[in-house]
Structure formats: C-alpha cells, structure tokens
C-alpha cells in the first residue's frame, strides 16, 4: 500500500517533470524515472515479463533512440532552434481541459470497473494467484492463442524499419546532392592517378 503511493507520487512527479522540462535531455531523464517506476508498478501487478520488457525496450531502446536524436540535432552544426516558447499561452486552457476530461474519465471508468467486476475477480491487486503473470504462462498465451497478432507485430516492425530508412536514409539537406553522389565526388581525387609521377617518368 505504502509502496504503491510512493511509486504513484514518483511516477506523477517524473511525468510532470518530463512535460515541463525546458530541454529535451531533461525530459529524457524524467521519462527514464517514469519508466523505471512503471516497471516497479508492473512487478506489483505481477506482470513480471512486462516489467522486464519495460526496462529493456523502453529504457534501453527507445530512450537511447531519443538521446541519439537529441545528440544529432544539437551537435553544434546549427543551434537547435525551437522558436519562441508558446507553451504558456496554451498551458492554462490545456490543463483545464485535461482536468475536466480526467474527471469525466475517472468517474465513468472507475465506477464501471467496480460495478462490472466479475465473481472470479480478486479483491485486491496484490497477493499470489497461482501461475498468473509468470513468463511461462505469458509465453504460452502469446505463442498459442495470440500467435497471429504476434506475427503481425513483426510485420509492423519491419514496415517501420523500411519506413525509417526511406524517410531518413539517403537524402542530404535541401540543395545538396544525395549521399551517393557526394561520396563519389569526395572519392574522385583519390581514384585519379598521380600526374607528377607519370610526368617525371616521361622526363626520364
């Protein structure tokens, strides 16, 4: 119980820090804290495999991707120009809207969650319930009942990889030639035979 409230406070604080940070790097740090506390919450909910996946995929892959892009964009060639900060103009109506929507969602979902809970449901969310949430039962469910969604996931990842290569792969900045041509231009003086050697040989 106490652990849940500590984790909830940490999670909300890190989420607020992520959203309000001035620089994207600070946001990445806040997001990392958020992911780690969320992984701990998954452990409390007996989703062991998802907790590990949360750390490995989110903290290990996606956040590193964010860090790489931030390092790429602010590498000193050009300043990372975001323009004037318009956040404060939009912030107040956004927060009011969000709080209203939060109230509505909370009232509807939480009430329905209490009302519709079936007989087999558990009273609390902590405690043991057999093999639920173990990696073995998760894998069995993933590779038998849900095999087709799993394979579609692989397809989605392949499409994403192809899309990323197509979007960001082989095109220089506007006005410059494509990378293959640039590479050919750079390679040209190396391929060219040394002129001075042949002239000196001819002189001998």
């Amino acid at each position: 119980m106490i652990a849940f409230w500590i984790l909830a406070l940490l999670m909300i604080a890190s989420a607020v820090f992520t959203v309000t940070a001035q620089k994207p790097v600070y946001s990445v740090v806040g997001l990392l804290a958020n992911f780690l506390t969320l992984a701990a919450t998954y452990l409390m909910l007996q989703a062991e495999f998802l907790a590990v996946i949360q750390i490995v995929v989110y903290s290990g892959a996606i956040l590193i991707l964010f860090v790489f892009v931030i390092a790429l964009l602010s590498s000193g060639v050009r300043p990372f120009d975001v323009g004037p900060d318009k956040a404060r103009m939009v912030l107040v109506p956004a927060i009011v809207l969000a709080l209203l929507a939060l109230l509505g969602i909370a009232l509807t979902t939480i009430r329905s969650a209490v009302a519709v809970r079936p007989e087999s449901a558990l009273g609390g969310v902590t405690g043991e319930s057999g093999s639920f949430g173990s990696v073995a039962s998760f894998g069995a469910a993933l590779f038998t009942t849900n095999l087709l969604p799993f394979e579609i996931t692989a397809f989605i990842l392949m499409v994403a990889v192809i899309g990323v290569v197509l979007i960001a792969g082989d095109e220089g900045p506007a006005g410059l030639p494509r990378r293959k041509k640039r590479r050919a231009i750079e390679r040209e003086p190396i391929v060219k035979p040394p002129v001075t050697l042949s002239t000196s040989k001819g002189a001998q």
Partner: protein
Amino acid sequence: MTVAPENYVALSAVLFFIGVVGVIARRNPLIMLMSIELLFNAANLALVTYARAWANNAGHIFAFLVITVAAAEAAIGLAIVAVTFRRSPHVDVDEVAALKG
C-alpha cells in the same frame, strides 16, 4: 495491504492527461514524442491493472503489442524530426508545413 484496482486506474488516468497536456502545450517535437510515450505507458498501466483484476493474461499480451507499436512509432517519429531538422533549423511544429500531402 491490498491496493484496489481503482487506484491503479486513477493513476493511469492522471498519467494519461499529463501526457495530453504535454502534447497540447509543448512545441518541441521531441518533447511531444516523449509525451506520446507517456500516453502509451498510461494505457499499458490500465491494461495490466485490468489483466490483474480479472486474472486474465490477455491484458499482458495487449500491453506487449502496444509496446511494440510504440517502438515503431518512436522510430518513425524521430526519423521525421531528424529529416525536418536537416531541411531547416526550425523544428517548431507550428512552423513545419512541409508534411502536407
């Protein structure tokens, strides 16, 4: 020592709307993408909570698929941001109109 599922769902809703505020109010595309990750995570927390409340694995499978799609989305979004930045140094999402069909 038990925590009712409603608490987890409320926490998920709070996280979701912090992320919504981030997407609406911020103009830095990187922070907007990170706010979208917050949204994914809030939805995942609700899924895992309901999976636990009903003692059913389907919520875990669904959260796993959501994580995979989130990875694909982050990769494509960051590629678009990088390409946009290479074309012009202005990465303010209000200024970028080049993605119009």
